[in-house]
């Protein structure tokens, strides 16, 4: 007969699950450094079981490295950096002691992710608005919505999830938590990042009379090699953010300079190129009317609405144009839908002799390259 197992012992089944609870337990490693005497084998004639390097490694792992073996929930547990000249070494967010420029940045917590999904999908707010509210990049918001939707679908289908893994990872790395009700949501990341344009890399000596006001608009024109704005046009621009509205309505209105291969659009000021240009107008309004907070926010909302409507319209127009150029053919009794698009025979699409390798269709007399040596067949994009 099998021995009886007492209930008290069994109740300890709880324990492995309690180890990763969120209450942080401090670690204290009894670092009893094994003395070097232990390792010296002066009078031994048997072959060493370990090399010197391995011995050092295991010694390190049992002393300094022991703290890194298991994580403490809610804290990062990286290699401690070597103390610098000032003697301060405790940098908890730098995983590499040798690299001071790399920081382990926080990720979105589970609650915050769900909140993003709720605001975008259920409350039907725009990505732009949610991005400003929560301080999350717009691309990240789109990705979060995509991922949470996928997760919900997988849960509904009963597919396997890796929940303990997710919990452990979120315990190990810093996270941005969702703020309590009534509190201000801390920003997750900077949302108005201006990408450095390659044409601004050049150092240009450009003499300007001291009497002239040289603005960001002018600087952009100089960098892209465009002629100076005419005075009549320049006077109309009181602030570089005035250009935003027109460009959002019609991005093709940006001026072009150069010919042929070197044709490029004039570099726009930072006010236009940042992801949230509408926030500048808001700041200007706030400064101009410090006592009319409600009117300012209302005007901001109107501007946002107008901008989104313009963007939506443009998207629809592009979609309609695309649809128009594609002819759908669905033969009777067939499960296929053929989409036929007219080939355009221009120098750019088929090359000078009409037989360029990127030209559409099979070309008589031109062998296919795909079996040749050294031809790379790894896909460059996967359609979603």
């Amino acid at each position, binding site marked *: 007969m099998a021995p009886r197992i007492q209930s008290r012992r069994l109740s300890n089944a709880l324990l492995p699950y309690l180890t990763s609870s969120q209450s942080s337990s401090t670690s204290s490693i009894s670092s009893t450094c094994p003395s070097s005497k232990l390792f010296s084998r002066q009078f031994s004639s048997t072959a060493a079981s370990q090399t010197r390097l391995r011995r050092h490694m295991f010694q390190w792992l049992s002393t300094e490295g022991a703290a890194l073996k298991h994580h403490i929930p809610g804290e*990062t547990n990286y290699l401690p950096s070597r103390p610098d000249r000032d003697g301060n070494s405790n940098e908890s967010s730098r995983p590499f002691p040798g690299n001071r420029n790399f920081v382990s940045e926080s990720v979105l917590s589970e609650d915050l992710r769900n909140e993003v999904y709720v605001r975008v999908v259920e409350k039907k707010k725009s990505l732009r608005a949610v991005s400003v509210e929560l301080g999350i990049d717009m691309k990240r918001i789109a990705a979060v919505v995509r991922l949470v939707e996928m997760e919900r679908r997988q849960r509904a289908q009963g597919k396997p999830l890796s929940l303990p893994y*997710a919990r452990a990872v979120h315990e190990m790395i810093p996270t941005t938590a969702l703020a309590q009700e009534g509190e201000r949501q801390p920003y997750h990341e900077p949302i108005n990042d201006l990408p450095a344009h390659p044409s601004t890399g050049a150092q240009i000596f450009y003499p300007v009379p001291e009497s002239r006001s040289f603005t960001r608009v002018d600087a952009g024109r100089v960098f892209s090699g465009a002629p100076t704005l005419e005075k009549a046009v320049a006077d109309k621009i009181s602030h570089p953010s005035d250009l935003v509205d027109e460009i959002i309505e019609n991005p093709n209105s940006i001026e072009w300079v150069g010919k042929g291969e070197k044709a490029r659009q004039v570099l726009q000021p930072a006010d236009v190129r940042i992801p949230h240009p509408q926030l500048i107008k808001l700041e200007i309004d706030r400064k101009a009317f410090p006592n009319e907070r409600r009117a300012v926010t209302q005007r901001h909302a109107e501007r946002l609405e107008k901008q989104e409507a313009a963007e939506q319209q443009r998207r629809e127009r592009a979609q309609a144009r695309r649809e128009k150029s594609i002819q759908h053919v669905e033969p009777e009794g067939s499960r296929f839908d053929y989409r036929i698009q007219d080939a355009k025979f221009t120098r750019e699409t088929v090359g000078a002799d009409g037989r360029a390798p990127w030209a559409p269709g099979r070309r008589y007399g031109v062998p296919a390259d795909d079996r040749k040596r050294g031809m790379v067949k790894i896909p460059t994009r996967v359609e979603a």
Partner: protein
Amino acid sequence: MRNRASTSLSKGKIRQSWSKYNLYNLSRFRTPATGNRTFFQQKWTAKAVSRAYHGEQVREGQWKRMFSKRIRSVIPMNTADLAADDGSKESAGRGSGLNEGSGRSRSSRPIPYTQMAFAPLERRLDVAIFRALFASSTRQARQFVIHGAVTVNGQKMRHPSYLLNPGDLFQVEPDRVMYATGAPKTAFERRESRQLKQKSADAEAEAETKPEATEKDEKENARDSLRALMSQAKTIMSTDKDVLPAKKKQELRGFQKAVRRVLSRSDTSTVLTDSLEAQFSELTLLLKAKRAEKKPAKESKKEAKEEETSAATTKSEETTSGALSEAFQAAAEGGKVDTSELTDEEFDILKRALTQMRDNPIDHSKPYATPWRPREYMSAFAFIPRYLEVNQNICAAVYLRHPVARPGSAEVPTPFGETISTPAYGWYLKRRW
């Protein structure tokens, strides 16, 4: 088995790996000395050291074709500053502002451009999988891709060198991720899984009419462990029939181990480590001390919570609502604490333990130690760069954009400082420095 070729102690090279050998190498790494060496030698060493970490699986010629001297960077803009003026103040006078005080007094940190020298490699699928913490090394990530465990935008992708485009969504099979990041099985667990396999094979040979036998077993395993937790002495007798005593013994041993681990990390080392009861009571006492600090719980609130949780967990177990109170009793009796009252905190902890137990059952058919726990030394390597958005629940991630440098920080994770990355960057320029 550890890849002996790639993590050697004598060379001390740092790799994209979570192994303890690599951790030791990382901890003892020192910037190579430059004095007494020619510029060429310095660049050569910097290149060798950094290439051992970045794209060690990529041939040198392949990497040279990928290298780009152009480095992406961004400047975070402040809208208040942009609104304040149109830029004419900065360019006034002789081109740098009229007086010193007119410009912004913010001290702008330099952008570490050369830290981004290996940014093109971060686009590779195998590296991205490693960065998303889905594999314990880039080589393992590569294996996952080749073995067909990875999809990109929903399609199976078998090329580890596929370069992700911004917006690409990649997903790894959760079981592989749990295997890669989880603790390995002990010898005992391996034997257990062997026996399980043997048993299922026997069952199949005997009667082919029950194809879902093993699945049922797995489900019952999880339920059994739950039941074991919740039931009291008399109910154990009935459940014992289903489960082998060896299995129970093994479970107990695992728990004992876990307890020791907890205690070795806690402040009080006075606890006896031989008897489980003593340990558990110590833990409960600690809990009680914590509870005493907090405000006393309200009865009505507790009841409401109880109802909530019972509603939430009904789908998993039909007997939960009834058994929850039993679990309380069991937990309290095991610790020999007064059974009369249960605070919110204790309740929360038990609730969390129950849900975790449901999510993380003991299952010997899995290739990793169950219940799942992170592998050793994982936390020292755990970080997720900002150019990835990861959902760990489904083991999927989106490659948002290419990594960028910004004032004071670079997004490419590299263990080397600028003293190494700058000569390495110079090495790969067409017109070499």
